[in-house]
C-alpha cells in the first residue's frame, strides 16, 4: 500500500480503465488496479467504468459491494489483516485479536485515530500450520503473538 496516495485525475482513471477494457470480464481487473493505485475505488471512476463496459451504475455498485476487497473510501496507511478462521483459532487467534483491538481502541474494520493502520478480519491466509497468521499490507506473518504484532505496528508508524 503506497504511503501517500495520489488524487485521481480523470485522465489517469481513463488510462487505467482503458488498460483492461478489452479483456474478457474486465471489471475485476479494473477495480483491482484502481484500488491498488488509490487505496479505494474513487467515486469519479464510476461513470467512466459504466460507459467503458456498458453496464449500469446499479450493476457496478452491486459488484463493488459484493466483494470484501473493494472499498469506496480509503483505509489507513497500512492494512493489518488478522486471520479469524478455524486453524488459527485452534492456536489462540481470538484472544490475540481481541487484545490488539482493545489496545488500539478500535473494532474490526476500524482505523487508528492517526490513520496509520486499519485492522481487517481475514478468513485464512494459507498459513494454517504456523498460526495465528497475519498480513501487514502484503507481508505475511506466522505464529503471531502480541509482541510480534506490536513490532509490526511500530514499524508501520502506529
Amino acid at each position: 500500500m503506497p504511503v501517500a496516495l495520489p488524487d485521481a485525475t480523470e485522465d489517469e482513471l481513463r488510462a487505467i480503465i482503458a488498460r483492461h477494457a478489452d479483456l474478457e470480464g474486465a471489471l475485476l481487473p479494473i477495480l483491482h488496479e484502481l484500488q491498488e493505485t488509490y487505496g479505494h475505488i474513487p467515486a469519479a471512476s464510476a461513470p467512466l467504468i459504466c460507459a467503458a463496459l456498458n453496464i449500469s451504475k446499479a450493476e457496478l455498485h452491486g459488484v463493488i459491494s459484493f466483494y470484501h476487497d473493494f472499498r469506496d473510501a480509503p483505509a489507513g496507511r497500512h492494512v493489518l489483516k488478522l486471520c479469524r478462521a478455524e486453524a488459527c483459532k485452534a492456536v489462540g487467534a481470538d484472544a490475540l485479536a481481541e487484545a490488539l483491538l482493545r489496545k488500539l481502541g478500535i473494532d474490526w474494520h476500524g482505523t487508528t485515530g492517526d490513520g496509520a493502520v486499519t485492522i481487517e478480519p481475514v478468513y485464512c491466509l494459507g498459513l494454517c500450520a504456523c498460526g495465528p497468521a497475519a498480513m501487514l499490507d502484503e507481508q505475511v506473518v506466522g505464529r503471531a503473538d502480541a509482541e510480534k504484532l506490536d513490532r509490526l505496528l511500530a514499524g508501520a508508524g502506529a
Partner: protein
Amino acid sequence: MKIYLSQDSAAKALCAEDVAAAIRAEAAARGIAVELVRTGSYGMVWLEPLAEIDRGAGREAFGPLTPEDVPALLDGTLPGLGPVAEIPFFKRQTRLTFARCGVIDPLSLDDYEAHGGLAGLRRALDMSAPEIVAEVTSSGLRGRGGAGFPTGIKWDTVRKAQGDQKYIVCNADEGDSGTFADRMIMEGDPFSLIEGMVIAGLGVGADKGYVYLRSEYPDAIAVMTRAVELARAAGLLGRAVLGCGPSFDIEIRKGAGAYVCGEETSLLNSLEGKRGVVRAKPPLPALEGLFGKPTVVNNVISLATVPVIFERGAAHYASFGIGRSRGTVTLQIAGNVARGGLFETGFGMRLGEVVEEIAGGTASGRPVKAVQVGGPLGAYMPVSQFDTPLGYEEFDGAGGLIGHAGLVVFDDSADMLGMARFAMEFCAVESCGKCTPCRIGAVRGVETLDRIAAGDGAAVALLHDLCATMKDGSLCALGGFTPYPVMSALTHFPQEFGQSREAAE
C-alpha cells in the same frame, strides 16, 4: 557452496527473508562464494525456515533457522537434520503431485524439465483428445477441490460439447481454513499447474485458460504471473504448444476476497466481472460455463496432478489408494499440531495415524479433542472416529467429508459451541445471498447458539430444525454443509451445549 532456502509464504512468515539476508551478509563478510537458490517448501512447516546445503556430497537439511544460526551453518558446526528424504515425516510420504516442490527453483524451466517436467505433456501431444481424456479417467483422479467428482468424466463432457470456444478454468480460490496445498504448489512448482492446464486444453479442445487466484495470496500471484510469462517466452504457452501443438494461453485473474467465489459457478460469474452469486445447475459449467461456453473448472491440485499421471502412466497413479479413492491425497495438517504441514500419501491411511503418529499430536502437548476435516464446511471428528480411513466414501460413511483435505487439529481446550457458532457466523458473512435458508438461516443460527450458550436448552431443538432447513433448502454447499460442523460439534460434544449425550443422539 550451494544453499537452497525455501521461499514459500509459510517460510517467509517465519522470517526466511531475514535468514536469506544473513546468509548473503555472512558469505560476503567471509569472502566465500555461496550460491543461494530459493525453492518452494517441502511442506514441513514446523522446520521452516528450512535450508539445505550442498557442499558437493548432496543436500543436507537444517531448520528451523534463525539469522543467528547462519555463522554456524556456514562453519559446518550447526546440528542438521540429514537429507530431507530421511526425515521421518517426509520418508513416509508418496510424493507424486509434490515430487518437485521444495527441490527445484520454481521459476526455472530447466530445473522443471530435469526433474520430469514436460514429459507428460510430450506424451499427451502424441495422443488424440479421446485418448488423453481416457488416460485421466483410468487414473481414477477425482476433483481435489471438494466434491471429488471424477475428473475424466468432466473432461469428456467438455470434449464432446459443441462450441467455437472452450475454456479451462483453474480454481485457485482455496478459501478453506486449514488448506494451503494450492498455494504451496503455485509458489513451489507453478509449471506443473501450467502443464496440467495445457494437457486439459489438448484433451477437451480449449485454447484459453484462466487461473482464478485469491487475492489473499500475493506471493502465489507473483510466482504464477512470472511463470506464465516464462512459459510464453519458452513456447510452452502461445500459438503452438512446444512448437508443434495447437495454441493455448493462460491468464491469471485475482479474486476479491469472497469465500463463495470458490464455488465453481460463483467463480465463473466473478471471472465474467459480475457479483459472485451462485448459479443454479443445470446447465452444467461443462456445457454452459464461462461466458456460456463449455468449460472445465478444476482445482489447482487436480490439474497439477495431471502431468505426473501422463509422465508415469494412469496405472501407476491408480495403483495407490483404496476403493474408489485412487492415487494420492495431499493432506494439509494444521491448527494446534506439533508437526504441521503438507503430507502427500496414498488414500487409505487412518485419520488417527496422521494426527497422532505423523503430526505428533497437538503443539500445546494437551490431548487432541477433535479434528475438523475438509474446511469450514467439514465435520468435527472426535478421537472416537480416528479409525476412519482417508477415502471419499469412508469419510462420507462417518458423516464427514474429505473436501480439499485440510485437517485442523484442536486440543482439549477448544470451545465446541464457540466453533459451531463460528461456522454459522462465517456462513452469514460469506453467503452469496441467493437462498433464504443460507442468508437468513445462518444469522438465526448464530442467535440460536447464543441462546444455547446462555442456558436455554429448548433452543437445541430449534438448532436441529434450522440445520435441516439449511441442508434441504440451500443451492450450494455453503448453506447446505454448514450444518456439518455445527451438528457434529453438537453430536459429539453435547455437554458443551448443555445436553446429555443421550438427548443429543
